[in-house]
Structure formats: C-alpha cells, structure tokens
C-alpha cells in the first residue's frame, strides 16, 4: 500500500512539475521544494491532488514547504489524516 502511494505521488510530481527532457529522477527522498523542482507557489496543485485523491482537507498551516519537501515527508503528513 505504502509503495503504491509512493509511486502515485512520484508519478504526479514527474507529470505535473518536470519537463520530459529534464533528466531529473525523483525518488522518495528527492528534495522537492528546497531543490527548486516544486516552488512554494506551485505546491498548491500537489496539495489539491492529495486532498482530492484521499478525500481529506490538509489545513494550510500544516502544508508547509518542509512537510512537502520529499515524498517521504508527504507520506508522513498524510498519515495524520488517513490510515496508510
């Protein structure tokens, strides 16, 4: 289950944020915000994607750049709202 979710988020990040020829590989530890792959302004679509997918509402104060900085961090955040 956790592996499926990891893949789901990685696939979304690749499709939503990377150009096909970017040559950047994303895994569960890749820094997303601090590396500049996802800027804090574009993070909103990732938050909306997760909220829709898991039928949850992530409060804005929890959706920090740190909480979204890697797929692992995101999974830890999600665990507060859904049983994974």
């Amino acid at each position: 289950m956790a592996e499926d979710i990891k893949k789901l988020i990685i696939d979304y990040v690749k499709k939503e944020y990377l150009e096909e020829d970017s040559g950047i590989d994303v895994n569960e530890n890749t820094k997303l915000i601090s590396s500049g792959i996802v800027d804090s302004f574009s993070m909103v679509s990732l938050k909306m994607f997760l909220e829709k997918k898991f039928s949850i509402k992530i409060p804005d104060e929890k959706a920090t750049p740190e909480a979204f900085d890697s797929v692992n961090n995101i999974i830890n955040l999600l665990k507060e709202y859904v049983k994974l």
Partner: protein
Amino acid sequence: MAYSEKARNFYGNELKGIRQGGLYKEERYIESPQGANIKVEFPMGSSTKQVINFCANNYLGLSSHPDVVKAAHEGLETRGYGMSSVRFICGTQDIHRELENKLTEFLGTEDTVLFPSCMEANAGLFEVMLDKEDAMISDRLVHASIVDGMRLCKAQLFNYKHNNMAHLEEKLQETQNCRFRLIITDGAFSMDGDIAPLDKICELAEKYDAMVMVDDSHATGFMGKTGRGTHEHCGVMGKIDAITTTLGKALGGAAGGCVSGRKEIVELCRQRARPYLFSNTVPPVVVAASIKVIDLLSKTTERRDKLERNTKYFRDKIKEAGFDIKEGVHPIVPIMLYNAKLAQDMARDLYHEGIYVIGFSFPVVPQGQARIRVQISADHEIEHIDKAIAAFTKVGAKYNILGKKRDEIIAAYGM
C-alpha cells in the same frame, strides 16, 4: 523603545543568513543619468568607473531622452510637483486622463487606469476580477508581483508548466465548474526573454470560455511591428481582456503602471482596486513625460526598429563567439553558464572590462540554470555592442567556456 536585543539579534541573524546564502543584494551608486554610458561607484567608496550599461530595462533608450526630459520640465512647470492626494479625492489632473486615453489607443484596448506601479496594478487586479467561485490559471514563471496579487485574491489557484499549452489545456478542463477562469501570463518573461504564445492562449481561452490577462512590462513599446506589445507580436490585438504594464521600463523608465483592457474591468479597478484607491496619484512630472513618450512612439517606429537590429546583431555575434544562449528575439539575452559562481565571477570580470551586467542564480532562476542576463537597448550603438562582444570573448576564454555546450560547462564547473 521596545526594540530589544532579542529583536536586533534576530534581524541581524536573518541578514547574516542572506549573506551566507550568497543572496545579499549590493546596490551600486550610479553618478550619471541612465543611459548606454554610465558612471558607477562600485565597490562603495571607490572612484567612479565609466561602463557600458547592459542591465537596464531602458529598452528604447528613453530614460534620459532630451524630448522626454523637456516634457518632464514642462509638466513640472505647468502642473506642479506633487498632488498630495489619491486619484479620487483631488489627485486627478487633465493630463492623467490624457495619458490614460493615449495608452488605451496605443495598446488597442477599451480603457486604461493608471497605477503607481505595475507591481500595484498586479496586486490590485485579480481581487477586483475574481472571487472564490473563480479560478486563476497562471504560468509558473510569472513575475513575483503577479504571485503576490494572486495571493491577495480568493479565487482558486492553478498553474501550468511554463509556456506549456497542453498543460494549460488540462487545467482549463479541470476547472470547468468555476464561474470565471482567468489565464494569467507575462507577455515576455524577464529571466528567459521568451514570449508567451498568446495566439494559442487566446485560442484555448475561446474554446474553454476563459479570460486572458497579460503582464506586458517587458514588451510594451517595442514588441510587435509598431511596438504595441506581445499581443501585437502574436497577432491578438483586441483579444486580451486585461493588460498590465509599466511606465518604468521602455516607456521612459521613471515610475507608474496601468491596467488596460475591457472597460468594465478598468472601471471596477477605479472603484475597488486597493493599491489604486489608497496610494498617491502618479506625479504630474511623470505623467507629462509619459505623454511625450507615447507621442514619440506613435509617430515613428525608429527606436523599436533600432532595438530589433541591435538585438539581432548582439544575438548573432555572441553565438558566433561561442556562447550558449537562450534563443529568441527579445532584447533580454540570457548567456547560460549553469554554475552560480561562474556567473558571478564572469559578471565581476566583465565589469572590470567596462561592461555592466549581472549574474543570476537560484532562487531567482531554477537550480542549475545560472546565467548572465544581457539587456540590449536602442541607446546602444554598434560600437557599444562590439565592445561587449570583445569583453565577453576575453572573459569567456579565461574561463575556457567558448564553444562549450551545457553538459561540458557543467562537467567543468558543476551545477
């Protein structure tokens, strides 16, 4: 006084962090009018140095143009220095409305309202146009002032990959249930010098019943055959619902901006845009000079034609010299160096050679995309550009990057 040691230390540490991160912005003192040749005191306290300026937004060379300066003097004489008022109390002169009408005609729109800056136009517009049942669909590389404006607006935010029309279309499909959708983009992007495909954006807007907003600050006055902007360049004059632009770049470069577009949107800005309502009016001297600028540009395309020739000349020559640049037609020419330190070191060496340019790196541009941004002006003569090419070639040879492509530069210097 409650400015405690704790507060002092906190702010001091913030500044230390900015310095350590290599993000501290040093101001350089220019002791001459803006133009191709300027006198600069840098580092602070050193004697002034004569350099050729390749980093101003003075695209048309109008910042110190004698006719513009004369019009400013006349404005000062006939309409005074300040108005000590916002527009709607006692801050609107006949010349404010005259300039708004001239901008409307120049941009080919329905109406125009002046703002103290384009930053403020962008800060005010979205909140006026949209509410929580609406959607803002923005390019990811829009200017920071648009990002701030969107943050002030309650509409839902969506964004698409830079200039990626397939991704924009996906976002338009995702937001079909919203009351209004507004596609938001820069006309010309300030870091890459590339142009938004406004023809395709307008097609998508029509197909999905969305409105289009363009910030044309880096295009008004020179893009398009008669310099009207990227909407002219892309053949969509009259189709953009809201244009924001600045008087602070090509159009004389002093201050001020505007929203120009559908008349109801402009009128609503006058009633509700908070940065318009609560800031002072644009000073008469700026208004008078801006009227002269629009008159000059409406009479002849000479200056934008010269800028176009200069831009082509520089782009051709710098490529011939072996530099890796972002292709395009805009007078912003990014010389790609990928490594932040390399960009800073080369900009410093070029300054010693008498060429004033700035290196840009993350977070201003994406990680691994460090560059020197060159900005061409109609104030430049071919001799200025030749000097720049010679200096770039000398400095490029020193760092052994001439003829090298991205991967080779990264292999030598890292990202």
